[in-house]
């Protein structure tokens, strides 16, 4: 398995793409660039425009304005069936009257390949996605995860310029989902196709993508490496949408933001006025110490394997969620008085009236 993409893919560029459905502005001047062979995940809540962006790139929707460049060429006037994009849908996209192999051959038949070449390629693709032995099954005889594998094989068989994945894992069980997520990444790196992956699941986006774009209301809120998005969120929205965050009241000044009598560095102070603010603090930036004199009290504990989340109530009824190593749970049963310490990790602040 390689870890760097074989850059056989093309560059994709969306410039100022807008799309309105009735009164809803689905895309509002979206700019997005994908390097050849790169896998970019578009992440956002439902209705943020991520699926619209993917469908416009596929040619299934038209943009009201803006340019779409694939390999440097404007594809606005290229109809969907000439765009040469492989697409995997959320579910139920396999042709139910065709076997797995016939589904994979569908696009090759359209490209007038010989029967022998088609069969060879279909088998090769089904083996790539790990279900070579199920070639003659009908979609109804396959599990959800297997169906998505066939859908992926079908999309890749035509050697598309760009691979488009529209929430391909969201209809699957948690376990299958994890497995297939890793497989998709492996296969994408192997074939090196430029890929756009749309999801509302932040864990999926962070685990899978070269870069993650967080979308909100038809625009990119932030795009960057997964660790950047997580560690250095540019806005309160990104901080809250990606990963879990506590919201505390704080006081912003030139030297930082003061929360619970601790001064913390900020990531986005320039955009917020000094004075009372809301501070977004990650659970892993909070430390707990069992202390009979501490003013917090453990109210709930959830075990997550190697880590655990501990909820602490402060005297003013503020709830604090902290993440600690499971090894320390023995000291922190519910009811324990604790001292809450904020680690000096940069945080995001937001104007206190903003929800």
């Amino acid at each position, binding site marked *: 398995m390689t870890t760097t993409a074989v850059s056989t893919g093309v560059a994709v560029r969306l410039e100022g793409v807008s799309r309105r459905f009735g009164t809803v502005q689905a895309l509002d001047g979206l700019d997005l660039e994908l390097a050849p062979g790169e896998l970019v995940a578009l992440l956002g809540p439902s209705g943020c425009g991520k699926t619209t962006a993917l469908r416009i790139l596929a040619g299934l929707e038209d943009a009201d304005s803006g340019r779409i460049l694939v390999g440097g060429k404007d594809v606005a006037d290229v109809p969907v*069936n000439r765009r040469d994009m492989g697409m995997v849908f959320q579910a139920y996209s396999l042709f139910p009257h065709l076997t797995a192999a016939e589904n994979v051959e569908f696009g090759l038949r*359209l*490209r007038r390949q010989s029967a022998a070449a088609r069969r060879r390629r279909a088998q090769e693709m089904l083996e790539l996605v790990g279900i070579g032995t199920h070639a003659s099954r009908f979609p109804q005889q396959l599990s959800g995860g297997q169906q998505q594998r066939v859908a992926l094989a079908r999309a890749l068989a035509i050697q598309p310029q760009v691979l488009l994945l529209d929430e391909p894992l969201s209809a699957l069980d948690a376990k299958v989902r994890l497995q297939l997520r890793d497989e998709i990444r492996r296969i994408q790196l192997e074939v090196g196709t430029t890929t756009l992956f749309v999801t509302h699941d932040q864990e999926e986006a962070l685990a899978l993508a070269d870069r993650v774009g967080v979308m909100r209301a038809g625009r990119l809120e932030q795009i960057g490496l997964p660790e950047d998005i997580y560690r250095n969120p540019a806005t309160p929205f990104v901080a809250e949408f990606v990963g879990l965050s506590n919201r505390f009241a704080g006081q912003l000044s030139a030297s930082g933001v003061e929360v619970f009598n601790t001064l913390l560095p900020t990531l986005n102070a320039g955009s917020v006025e000094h004075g009372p603010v809301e501070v977004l603090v990650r659970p892993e930036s909070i430390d707990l110490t069992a202390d009979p004199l501490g003013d917090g009290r453990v109210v709930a504990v959830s075990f997550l394997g190697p880590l655990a989340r501990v909820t602490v109530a402060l005297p003013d009824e503020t709830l604090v969620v902290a993440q600690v190593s499971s090894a320390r749970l023995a000291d922190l049963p519910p009811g324990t008085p604790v001292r809450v310490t904020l680690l000096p990790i940069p945080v995001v602040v937001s104007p206190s009236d903003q929800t």
Partner: protein
Amino acid sequence: MSRRLRDLLGVVPFLVFVGIFLVVPTLVVAIGAFLDEDNRATLDNVTALADGYIVQAFVRSIVLSAVTAILGAVIGALLGYALVTAKPDSTVRRVVTSACGVLAQFGGVTLAFAFMATIGLSGFVTLFLRDSLGIDIFSGGVWLYDLPGLVLVYTYFQIPLMVIVFLPALDGIRPQWREATESLGGSTWYYWRRVAGPLLAPAFIGSTLLLFANAFSAYATAAALVSQGSPIVPLQIRSALTSEVLLGRENVGKAMALGMVVVVAVVMALYAVLQRRTSRWLD
């Protein structure tokens, strides 16, 4: 009493119903077809089915059923397709499907009368066309009370029936299939030929067969509309059972009824086979 037996008790009303209204009449017809007036076994009734006028009635019945089934199927399928392109909970769709539910069961004396009152010899549309526009719809003969009239009136209830039975198949067609076809390089024509066509064909043919059986067994509409002669089998059966000119023909009527049972049974067997095939694909 075993549990199994107790459970079966609940089905008794249904079995009684089917017994009285389906099994017993079928047996009466099937046995009667092979008996003469004195209840002795004979093949005369069945061989009488080869008589010219009975063969003709069967041919007309089959032609009438086939023509109205195909007309109803094509027009009903197009109407159904228009409906599924509307939103599933739209008012248009709800109104049209309810209307179809009513109209599909609207055949019979009422329907025949409705047609007589509108486009009959002195129907108000006929009179309006003749008096105001100078168009005489009966200039070529009084077709309404003969086979062409039956085609028109039957089609009236065949179309809504098609909408009702074909709509589930249309609903089972997922938009992703079209989008997948297109993204793989297929045109709209290719989609219909390779995906939607093959997927809908069994349901379409199956529904057409159902429509055929529906028209083939219809009686009241034709009985009310046709006052002279007995162009189709159900009317022939009536005249065999009620004729005061030719006596002792009841059992020929039963033989004709048996013939109808056979035709419908063949059609429904085909329908069941096709239905099973579609339900395997579309859930």
